[in-house]
């Protein structure tokens, strides 16, 4: 693909998949509530229009620069995450030798940006959401890095395309069965959904997003979806062989796999209740972190 086509594919992928998640959310909710979905395909667009039609407002003495910047940075981070994903063997927007480390930086900076968003509005519920998010987001990030390094081991490279190439015979999801489930948790945490929604939850009146409206809110909500797209695409690439697959062209395989991972992620986010932050911390450090270690050791032994 030429750079222009590649960039357009990237934009279309982000927007299309974000819309796809919104549709899935609507359908899932309707099915779970036992009612007819309300204009399932168009409803996300209607909501976008509603939010855009609202004026952006201000709180008393916010940190305006950070407050306005945070949603844009969040969306930008999601975008760079997707840019790492190869659509086919020759077409990847950001062909970095150290793609996995870059993804780690995306995760780390996401935690920073979400914290800044909650902190800069100068309101108490947003601040509580921000603190909580940092406490949960940082350890989940560590877990994901263990898992990703384990996935990079058989490829003997930190570059994402090389990791795909290493999955010609066997996908990483089979080689390292613990990897994908742990990585999916990261997706929920990075976009704070369902059981990992510690930033924008109902008890905090939407937490870090409780004070924004208008265009800033639209960007914020889009960024949450885009970040979920980025993790799903990354999961499809690192654990499910990315564009590899018979008959169909590579980009289509990537699309299909991402779509399947997104169904899983949406299901997870609706299926589980949120436990209290302190219990979640215990769960992460006592159960999930050792599992990630086991995954890493397992991958190392297999690679030997």
């Amino acid at each position, binding site marked *: 693909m030429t750079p222009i086509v590649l960039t357009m594919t990237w934009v279309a992928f982000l927007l299309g998949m974000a819309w796809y998640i919104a549709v899935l959310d609507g359908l899932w909710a309707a099915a779970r509530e036992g009612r007819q979905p309300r204009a399932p395909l168009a409803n996300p667009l209607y909501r976008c229009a*509603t939010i855009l*039609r609202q004026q952006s407002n201000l709180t008393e003495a916010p940190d305006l620069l950070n407050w306005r910047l945070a949603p844009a940075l969040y969306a930008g981070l999601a975008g760079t995450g997707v840019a790492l994903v190869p659509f086919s063997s020759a077409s990847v927007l950001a062909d970095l030798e150290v793609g996995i480390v870059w993804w780690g930086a995306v995760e780390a900076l996401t935690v920073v940006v979400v914290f800044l968003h909650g902190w800069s509005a100068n309101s108490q519920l947003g601040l509580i959401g921000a603190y909580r998010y940092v406490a949960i987001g940082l350890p989940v990030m560590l877990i994901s890095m263990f898992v990703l390094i384990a996935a990079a081991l058989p490829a003997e490279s930190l570059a994402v395309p090389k990791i795909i190439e290493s999955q010609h015979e066997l996908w990483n999801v089979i080689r390292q069965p613990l990897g994908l489930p742990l990585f999916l948790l990261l997706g929920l945490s990075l976009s704070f959904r369902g059981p990992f929604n510690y930033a924008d939850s109902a008890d905090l009146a939407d937490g870090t997003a409780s004070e924004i409206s208008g265009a800033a809110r639209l960007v914020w909500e889009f960024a949450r979806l885009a970040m979920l797209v980025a993790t799903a695409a990354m999961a499809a690439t690192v654990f499910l062989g990315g564009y590899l697959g018979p008959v169909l062209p590579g980009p289509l395989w990537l699309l299909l796999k991402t779509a399947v991972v997104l169904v899983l992620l949406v299901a997870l986010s609706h299926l589980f209740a949120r436990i209290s*932050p302190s219990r979640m911390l215990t769960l992460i450090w006592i159960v999930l972190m050792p599992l990630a270690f086991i995954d890493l050791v397992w991958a190392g032994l297999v690679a030997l």
Partner: protein
Amino acid sequence: MLERLAARAPVPVFVAMGRDRAPAVERLLRNADIDVTATPRHASILLVAGRVRDSDQAYLDRLHDQLPHPRATFWWGDEQGDDVDEARRAASSDDPVVALRVLYRNLISGAHASETHRLADEPPAPWRGKGDHGQGGEGMMGGVPYGRMMPMPPTPDIRDGLTLDVYTTQIGPFMPYWPAGLVLEVTFQGDVIQSAEVVNPTYPPRDVDRVPFDHLLHETTALAQIERARAAHHLVCIARLLSLVGLPTLSRRAQILAARVRANETIAIAPLRKAAARSGLKAALAPGLGRIDDRLARELGGPVQRAAGHAIDHRSDNPTYTRLDFTPVMQTQSDCRARLAQWFDEAEQALALVSAAPDAMIDHGALIEAPWAHRAPPIDYRVTELLPGLEWSEALLVLNSFDSAALCRMAPLEAP
């Protein structure tokens, strides 16, 4: 184009719960055409449901000014003044959904002008002194700040051995998942509540599910009607908790079930209960969270008392019920989990009674257990003693594990 698309979206509404509209508002929560927002910043219409006491008017005005333009206020209730035009009000007996949609469409097309600020756009307390916002004075701490309290006063209290500054803020009276009308001044350390003080008491509870019980005072009433009201009441309580633990879809399902019970449809609660259990509801409500002592449980009565292990239920003495082999269900632990399980058990039992004796009648004047806590005068136990030491999300879970009548007695009623 934008207007046309926006007009077809669910109407974003923030509900300011007034004195007596709580159950009616729950009808809106189920409607897919209405999007009840968690914060006024996301809403276009401020729905004032019921009467707001005079001392809350200032809070309401501040709430109103937080809505982004274009915005409008909609009054739902009987006591609203005649100065409000027809487009922005509905009688308490009406369903306001259609009116809200019309108002919203006019609002975004510009046919209905956006409302201006009600309060002057200035800080609630003046900033005087040095700094970007005039917030401080000389010296290391910014000296003595002028004009308003130090935002984070130092405290000797230590948690985890580290001193994290506390801050004090008012919460209520229109906060979601918060007892309507209650204003608490809460002191936080991090997200843990240090202390709370009642500024304004809760509004007295008014319940649609009360109708058959009132009816029973004067006329012979069908057992089915009474038990359906009980199931509906409990389902609504369950819905609130489900939403708080991050299961909004199941919460809405509970709301829908409640509506169907009220409409005399036959429903089953077991699937909902199973779905909730599979979602890890138990893990979300830590064991022992919100445990209350025996004395308080007895004073509050109703399901709270039975969740504490006291099989006290007036229905045990009623011949109609004894003929149906009625025995009260109860839990033992007296915590949030137990109260939730009690609601589920009682709702299921109520529906079982309905199907066992669909035509049974109860004589008027008979003493029948109500689905909620005793409505006796306030007790000396305060909601402010319940909250300190709890993390914010736990505090809300604990509050919502009581029915509104119980909360009303713990956060003293206003003088009539």
